[in-house]
């Protein structure tokens, strides 16, 4: 992962319009950093560390997309990211946490699908 992404190509957080971008660690990093900043959420690990972890988990998901129970794996990987990031998504959690966690799950699913094809 490069230190700096070109300014004109920085993805907007939560923007999945170009699915191929979701396989780029910078996409995850930008999504987490911007999302946390906008929503006022404090992450337990740096966006970069979490992005690298998400990239690794998305690659794993891509390799098992044909397996039975794949949907369970996506939820489990989302939970793993939540546990590392300190995000919550249950009924009593803040709306911002739920929103960002939804983005994490979406990004993992899209990235896994793109990597698998």
């Amino acid at each position: 992962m490069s230190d700096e992404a070109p300014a004109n190509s920085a993805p907007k957080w939560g923007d999945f319009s170009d699915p191929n971008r979701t396989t780029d660690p910078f996409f995850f990093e930008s999504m987490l950093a911007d999302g946390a900043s906008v929503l006022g959420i404090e992450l337990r690990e740096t966006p970069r560390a979490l992005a690298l972890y998400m990239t690794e988990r998305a690659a794993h998901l891509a390799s098992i997309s044909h397996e039975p129970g794949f949907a369970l794996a996506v939820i489990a990987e989302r939970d793993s990211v939540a546990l590392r990031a300190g995000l919550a998504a249950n009924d009593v959690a803040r709306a911002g946490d739920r929103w960002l966690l939804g983005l994490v799950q979406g990004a993992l699913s899209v990235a896994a699908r793109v990597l698998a094809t």
Partner: protein
Amino acid sequence: MLKLFWYVGALALVALVALSPFQASSCISARTQQATLLPAARAAWPGVEADFIRGVESSVAAARLSAAAGEALRDAGREFESALESSNMAALRVAPWPTIERYAEAGIEDRLSVGEIGPGVMASLLERLSNFARTIYRLQGAE
């Protein structure tokens, strides 16, 4: 002699003043830790709980566990959930997490053995269990 007492007293005061920021920051850190770890643990618990219940049920079905022991384990799971939901740190610290973890793992293995999930999905469920365990150990002050 009076001078000696004065010096000792002054040293104790200096030590107290010097240490108090560390004590305060450690309290804040523990509180921050609880504030971020507990909600994440609550969010991930339903998935871990499903694996745990599955492990208890499959162990009872295979006669590796008596029905009474299975019910006692389910109670332990409910108490663990209640401690998580109510942020009861005292109850969480004494919760039988290693036992819950063991049966959650057994549940994941059972899902694989009946073909409900594949080995890669099993790895994802185990990864969540491992992250969840790390979070609980942190909350219990073991890490």
